[in-house]
């Protein structure tokens, strides 16, 4: 189980934010807006990037389609997706703790 998760880590910033945004099921543009907000403007997803990410994440079974309205598909995390983002955040937290001293620079 761990190897299946670890092969995806570390995630890119784009992927990490998409998975975080999917803490609730959302469709594409809603994810774009949420990521812009929660990243405090540091990550602004482009539609080409987001669409490509959906295709890959769905193929790797980290997310799944749960509905569709007006040509907008709603996605949600799978169990595997949850495990991946959880592990990624755990790692990033250790890194951030180690890097806290750089705030003095």
């Amino acid at each position, binding site marked *: 189980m761990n190897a299946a998760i670890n092969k995806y880590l570390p995630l890119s910033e784009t992927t990490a934010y998409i998975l975080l945004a999917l803490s609730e099921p959302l469709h594409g543009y809603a994810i774009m807006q949420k990521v812009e907000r929660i990243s405090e403007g540091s990550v602004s997803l482009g*539609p*080409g990037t987001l669409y490509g990410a959906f295709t890959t994440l769905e193929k790797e079974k980290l997310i799944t389609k749960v509905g569709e309205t007006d040509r907008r598909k709603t996605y949600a995390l799978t169990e595997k997706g949850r495990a991946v983002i959880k592990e990624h955040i755990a790692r990033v937290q250790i890194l951030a703790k180690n890097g806290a001293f750089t705030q003095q620079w």
Partner: protein
Amino acid sequence: MTTIHQWRWFFAWQDDKEEQWLREMALAGWHFRDVSPFGKYTFEQGAPRNDVYRLDFFRRDMNKAEYLQLFQDAGWAYVGELSRWQYFRKTVADDLDPAASDLPDIFSDNESKAAKYRRILLILVALLPIYLNAIITIARQQNSATSVYSIVMIVFLFFYTYAIIRLIMRVRQLTKKL
């Protein structure tokens, strides 16, 4: 409505130059209408507009309706297509004169930009055995007509290889990581 035609040719790795050219035309008041496979671009005259054009290379097994809806939601107008090339346009707020690197883009990271060029490479590489087979088959029948033809095909093959190399270089440039 005044319409003009311009003939230009852009190779797959020159899509950024094509985007820049379409932008310059729009700033001069000529707005992209259509493009044909032979490099004929149609423009309609209008007011100069601070527009950004972006090109994507679509994969046929993807869901086009969902794809286009996402772009539309994100404020990109779908203005045309040529084979798998998709043309999008967005107007930049007029009081901004951003540096090229600050202009809106449909890709927000280098990995997805590189993925676009990889999609093109996949098609080129898949077609390569077909061309090689055609050259070999024709070269085997030795008469003057076929030897001219096989020279043409070999020149084409050299260029084809050059195209593949340029695209690979572009992908590597975008995926350089520390």
